[in-house]
């Protein structure tokens, strides 16, 4: 078994190959395949919400239009750019690790976290404005205070808070994971021979960006 192992996994500490894998390559591919299976569950989870939105949007087009009119597309636009930048720095951190450029990789990871912070701060301001105006999901909607034309406007905000809330939760979890990666990368755990956790978290972070790519036009523009 040991004879089959790659010899490239001794530097950078973390590249220990578990006994049920042929070599480091096999271990990396298996981990990545697991991440892609997880991504399918993410696509189907958010996909269900998107299809639900499409169904009720078709039934109540004016109500959804009213809901979208309360959102400031400029904030959604800035957040789209922030997430694109963060996806770029995340991808670049892997590029640097593959070239054993540790310091640049660590910097790129921290910039990615910073982008996550900016995204969440903007999101918090948006949520605060919705709470203040009584624009809340379901029966929590304050029809008088929100000056709601449609009494069922709470349905739009049900979708809005479920979809952006679930997405925001993914951003927070992603940020936590990237902080963990940045600390480990700084410690020298990763390099060209071993960067599996960075690759996996990277794919997760990109799907968070990908979901926002659809959420932005759906919630803020088309409505």
């Amino acid at each position, binding site marked *: 078994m040991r004879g089959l192992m790659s010899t490239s996994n001794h530097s950078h500490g973390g590249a220990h190959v578990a006994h049920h894998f*042929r070599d480091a390559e*096999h271990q990396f591919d298996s981990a990545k395949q697991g991440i892609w299976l997880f991504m*399918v569950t993410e696509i189907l989870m958010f996909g269900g919400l998107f*299809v639900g939105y*499409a169904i009720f949007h078709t039934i109540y087009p004016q109500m959804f239009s009213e809901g979208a009119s309360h959102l400031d597309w400029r904030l959604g636009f800035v957040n*789209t750019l922030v997430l694109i930048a963060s996806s770029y720095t*995340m991808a670049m951190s892997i590029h640097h690790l593959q070239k054993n450029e540790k310091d640049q990789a660590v910097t790129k990871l921290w910039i990615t976290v910073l982008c996550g912070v900016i995204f969440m701060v903007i999101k918090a301001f948006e949520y605060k404005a919705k709470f203040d105006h009584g624009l809340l999901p379901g029966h929590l909607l304050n029809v008088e205070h929100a000056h709601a034309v449609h009494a069922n406007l709470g349905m739009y905000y049900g979708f809005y808070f479920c979809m952006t809330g679930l997405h925001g939760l993914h951003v927070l979890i992603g940020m936590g994971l990237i902080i963990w990666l940045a600390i480990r990368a700084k410690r020298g755990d990763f390099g*060209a021979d071993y960067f599996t956790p960075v690759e996996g978290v*990277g794919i997760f972070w990109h799907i968070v960006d990908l979901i926002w790519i*659809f959420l932005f036009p759906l919630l803020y523009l088309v409505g």
Partner: protein
Amino acid sequence: MGSHNNHSGGNHSHHIIPKEIYTRVMWALIVCTLLTVGFHYLFHNVMHGSVLAAPVAFIIAAFKAALVLMFFMGLKYDKPDNRLIFATGFFFLALLFIISVLDIYTRIAETSTL
């Protein structure tokens, strides 16, 4: 390396995607986002509503998503296994969407008084 390792590259080291590709993809995504907002302004503020608004916004979004999947998530350079896993998930989502659309337009939209 195992002889029965059907890795597409067959290469021991991982494919390093050039920095220039990531930079170009990022700028393409930014330009597409500006296009999305530009078209929204055109359809919403200039034409005061158009049936094209939603299709155009989602075609651009789909193009952006394809860029993220192929380059940032690396599916273009990945093993066929992972592309198949993604395609399977996408297929069932598309199936859910198509069946829902058929239902809405042939049943609910026909009979609902809403």
